[in-house]
């Protein structure tokens, strides 16, 4: 049997005349941690709703382990869901909340209490069973929500931006915990978020959605280093996205102009025949050349003025004015600050040709 846990086949969804999700096809293998990443309004929540069964697709099919789910209501799909605002039952204790799924499935009292104990231990909340949700902190409530969803051992766990209500430190700690739980359970996680850092940190695979369709799908590394569109390049991490013109093929390079023809750059990326409009350069790929230092063979070399330095703590973000029309952003570890000339002075930059990515749109 195939090891695909969830499959969306040409799924579209419109609310009335408003199309929200457009022809999405997706395959999620068993045991994978997949994030559906995108800005608000991109259709990721609607997609999650459809997998859960709260919305029916207007077109297409949704299969779980090969079986079409469209006729099956949420209560019989055997999937778990962690809600963004936790949705803990306020009138039940933590233990009653966590045991609810098993209770609905008719498990015996002893089975339930055993499973509840295990689940609470799994989220490091042993002993909290008799408390009420309102007595817990946000982070604790979130873990109860997780325990509750996992306790009935569903085949798949859906998570709807579960960390968005937590503050930064807690979020970062929970990312690690979530990933560890997922790995130890070997459960398929489908994680919806707008936070690209989160998606990058936890996922085996990221599905980037935009305006109801899948913009790009792949591993975090792939998506980061080889974005296909300017939307993806811009949404994930920081990048300099510059319009290109006057493309000339000079093997092994593609030579083109930026800044309205004032400068020329080269890239090693192959001409795909498509309409290439933008180039994308990640800030960390821009190197500052020291006095007298020459750029490596074949690398792009640019001269500009240091416009602004922003201290982000561990890193510096530097804005360099090039050809009087462009501001390019570069990053540098804070420790290297001593090498920088004062603001307004000339700086020389080097960018490897392989680091210049080309984007279709």
């Amino acid at each position, binding site marked *: 049997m195939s090891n695909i846990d969830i499959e969306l086949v040409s799924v579209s969804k419109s609310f009335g005349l408003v199309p929200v999700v457009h022809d999405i096809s997706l395959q999620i293998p068993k045991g994978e941690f997949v994030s559906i990443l995108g800005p608000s309004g991109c259709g990721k929540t609607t997609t999650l709703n459809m997998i859960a069964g709260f*919305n029916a697709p207007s077109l297409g099919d949704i299969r779980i382990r090969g079986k079409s789910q469209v*006729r099956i209501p949420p209560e019989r799909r055997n999937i778990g869901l962690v809600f963004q*605002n936790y949705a803990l039952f306020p009138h039940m204790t933590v233990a009653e909340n966590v045991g609810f799924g098993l209770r609905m499935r008719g498990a015996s009292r002893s089975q339930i209490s055993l499973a509840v104990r295990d689940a609470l231990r799994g989220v490091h909340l042993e002993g909290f069973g008799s408390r009420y949700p309102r007595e817990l902190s946000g982070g604790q409530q979130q873990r109860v929500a997780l325990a509750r969803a996992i306790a009935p051992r569903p085949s798949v766990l859906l998570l709807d931006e579960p960390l968005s209500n937590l503050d930064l430190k807690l979020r970062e700690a929970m990312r690690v915990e979530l990933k560890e739980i997922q790995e130890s359970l070997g459960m398929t996680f489908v994680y919806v978020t707008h936070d690209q850092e989160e998606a990058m940190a936890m996922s085996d695979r990221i599905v980037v959605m935009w305006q109801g369709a899948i913009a790009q799908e792949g591993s975090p590394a792939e998506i980061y280093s080889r974005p296909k569109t300017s939307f993806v390049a811009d949404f994930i991490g920081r990048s300099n996205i510059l319009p290109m013109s006057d493309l000339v093929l000079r093997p092994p390079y593609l030579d083109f102009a930026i800044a309205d023809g004032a400068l020329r750059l080269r890239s090693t990326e192959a001409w795909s025949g498509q309409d290439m409009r933008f180039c994308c350069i990640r800030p960390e790929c821009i190197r500052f050349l020291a006095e007298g230092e020459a750029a490596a063979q074949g690398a792009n070399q640019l001269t500009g003025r240091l416009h602004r330095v922003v201290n982000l703590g561990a890193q510096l973000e530097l804005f360099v004015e090039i050809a009087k029309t462009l501001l390019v952003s570069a990053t540098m570890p804070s420790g290297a600050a001593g090498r920088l000339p004062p603001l307004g002075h000339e700086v020389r930059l080097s960018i490897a040709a392989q680091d210049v990515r080309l984007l279709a749109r």
Partner: protein
Amino acid sequence: MNTLVLELPAAPARRDGRSHLYAALSPSLVVLAIFFALPMGLMIGISFSDAASGTLSLANYHRFLTDGLSLAGIGRTALMSFLVAVSVTILGYPVAYFLARSKGRTRAIVFALALAPELAGVVLRTYGWLIILEDRGFINDALLHLGLIDAPLPLSKNLFAVVVGLTHVVLPFGILSLMTSIQGIDPNLERAAQMLGASRASVIRHVVLPLSVPGIVSSLLISFTMAASAYATPALLGGAGFKVLATMVYEQVLFYVNWPFAAVLANALLLMMLAVSFIGIRFEARRRAVHKGLTGGAS
């Protein structure tokens, strides 16, 4: 909020599932149809019939408009209700403001004190006012004792007593209505005014009062409506000579057994209520329109 919920469950609509919902609704609908809708219709119909012969006639309405007593009754009802509405709103405002802006035990005590009289029932409170206001009652007793007056002041069995009594009865509702409205005013607005140099009195005058106008109107309307519909308090505190629509209806039904005329009076009272509600709705609609204009449509 929970972003996951966009629409109702997508389980295929089970048409059969609906019938049990209609069954759930039907007892309520049946009770109201039989004991409310039907009787109301009947009453409106009977106002058009002649008391003796039962034939269709406008005689009752004619009498209503010409006998002088009926119109006087309406006038008295309206005046009484208006005075009650104003008193309730004025007296209730400080309490409402306090309740809207405070927390903790003091608030709980004031809240209980403001609303608990409602539990005591109309009779107890009206009886209390009778004792206080009557000729041999409290106030007169004290004033006579202190030598400030020679003869008892006529504080009961008149408009004054009824207004005092009804104000007391209606006050909890006015306070609640005002409190809700004031709670809706962002406290930061008051703080902002203070930071800009306004004294407490100015803050109330320039910030709180204008913004609580909807609540004030609501309180006036509710108080008016409740006062106009009241029976026990005008009957007890107003005395035999103080006739408002409610007591007149009672009289027509139980003393004169003149159903049609009673129906006319009842209809008049009902019309008064509807007119007041209508004013309230129009006011609310106007306010919404103005508010929309001010905020550029982002209501």
